[in-house]
């Protein structure tokens, strides 16, 4: 298995990170390992150029924290979470916007994608369609 295919993948800036509705990364055709953002070589099996893959818009909030130390452009408190996207998607960090509700580990969440140029680019909200 040569690595050659990893030489001609799009640059990191050229690879989409979302499609306006969902996060986009890569999924290895060989072993199924996923990555967000996409990578040039699979971290699990070493296969080059894993395919671009659109992840589920829903996921499970594994854990979260409310941060009380502000950062520039980011007033405190704000909530961060670690989310495992559904359908064996990747585990990602992101802000969690509860709109007044209380977060809970195991809660169903849905990804939200910001407008062009918005920071952060994506965040999570409670999935109000979940059971």
């Amino acid at each position, binding site marked *: 298995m040569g690595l050659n295919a990893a030489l001609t993948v799009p640059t*990191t800036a050229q690879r989409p990170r979302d499609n306006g509705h969902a996060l986009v990364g890569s999924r290895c055709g060989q072993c199924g*390992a996923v*990555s*967000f*953002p996409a990578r040039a070589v699979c*971290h*699990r099996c070493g296969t080059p150029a894993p395919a671009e893959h659109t992840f589920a818009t829903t996921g499970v909030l*594994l*854990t*979260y*924290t*409310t*941060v*009380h*130390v502000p*950062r*520039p452009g*980011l007033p405190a408190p*704000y909530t*961060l*979470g*670690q989310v*495992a996207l559904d359908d064996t998607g*990747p*585990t*990602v*960090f*992101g*802000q969690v916007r509860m709109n007044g509700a209380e977060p809970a*580990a*195991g809660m169903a969440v849905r990804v939200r994608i910001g407008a062009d140029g918005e*920071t*952060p*680019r994506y*965040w999570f909200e409670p999935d109000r369609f979940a059971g």
Partner: protein
Amino acid sequence: MTSDDIEVIGVGMHPFGRFTGHSLKDLNRVACVSALVDAGLGVQDVDAVYAANAMAGLLQGQEMIRGQSVMREIGIERIPVTNVENACASGSTALRQAVLAIRAGSADVVLVAGVEKMFVEDRGRTLAALESAGDLDVVSGIGLQFTAVYGMRLRRLVAAGRLTVDDLVAVSVKSHANGALNPYAQHRKIVSPEEVLGSRPIADPLTLLMCSSICDGAAAVVLARRGVIPSAGRPTVRVRASQAATGYTTTGNEPSLTETCATAAYAEAGLGPEDVDVAEVHDAMAPAELIAYEHLGFCGPGGAGALLGSGATQIDGSRPVNPSGGLSSRGHAVGATGLAQVAELTWQLRGEATGRQTHQPRIGLAHNNGGWLEGESAVSCVHLLERTDPWD
């Protein structure tokens, strides 16, 4: 060659804390000269230097030749100086390179030095520099701070019933109590559980008194090939294992990075967790010590709270952990931390840790992690040290 061919022949520290008037050169000088004096050597006895620092590029503007610039202050020139950077594990990474340099036959006596100056006029710059311990291409803009990463790890364990908030508080109280006994420590004040729980929230469940804080400091270690430097009648401390590993993309189901690295270190030394008599573990937030208990094999899954509660990890317990106060109370001068751990273990193994001496330890373990990827540390280093002389 085998790993027990290398001895720790000198250690030294500049106290950790806030040292406004002290430059990187001042901090480094005190640590290095102390370590050389401890070894009974002069600067011209050193064959090579490994210099660890994580943030001087962003905080002092000194990139590129950090080690060379601080070493000339103590008259060290000509010999190879290598700058090593691996986030909060920079010090232990530098130590490992020194071990490899001796094993490779390129040096007999190596000075390993770590220095960090985090107090600058604008605290925001220090916080921003700390954020560069993540992959900024992936996480920048979401406000991911070190404390948040630890807060999330700990909440998950609390939610799963593997730790309680009382455990987090108790281990923080222990950390401060140990720091209070350590003249090199940044935080030297005993605190009560109520004070820990009532202190300012940082990233829940973490409160201020659970967290390491901004810190200046330096630490240094002199390694030598066995037999090159006479022991001067002092107990000999040997390096029995030196391992490093890089974080990985987690699925949530694999062994932790620390576990992987510790397993390799135990295998290198032919030892197991049951052989460890004293440990300095990576607790950038004091409750992370509890996670380390599991990952280093000191207890089974979910057993950390009970182990702590048993008193075994207290200074007078059967397996003391972080007698120095750990990162949270001794302080976490990022690039110096890994070497401060080795300094503490060396004092413990020699019986020189006045006021916080543990009972006749033979094997010491140093665990130093750094940075983060999604869900794991970016770097882990585990070293095992041995006192080869009997205790009387």
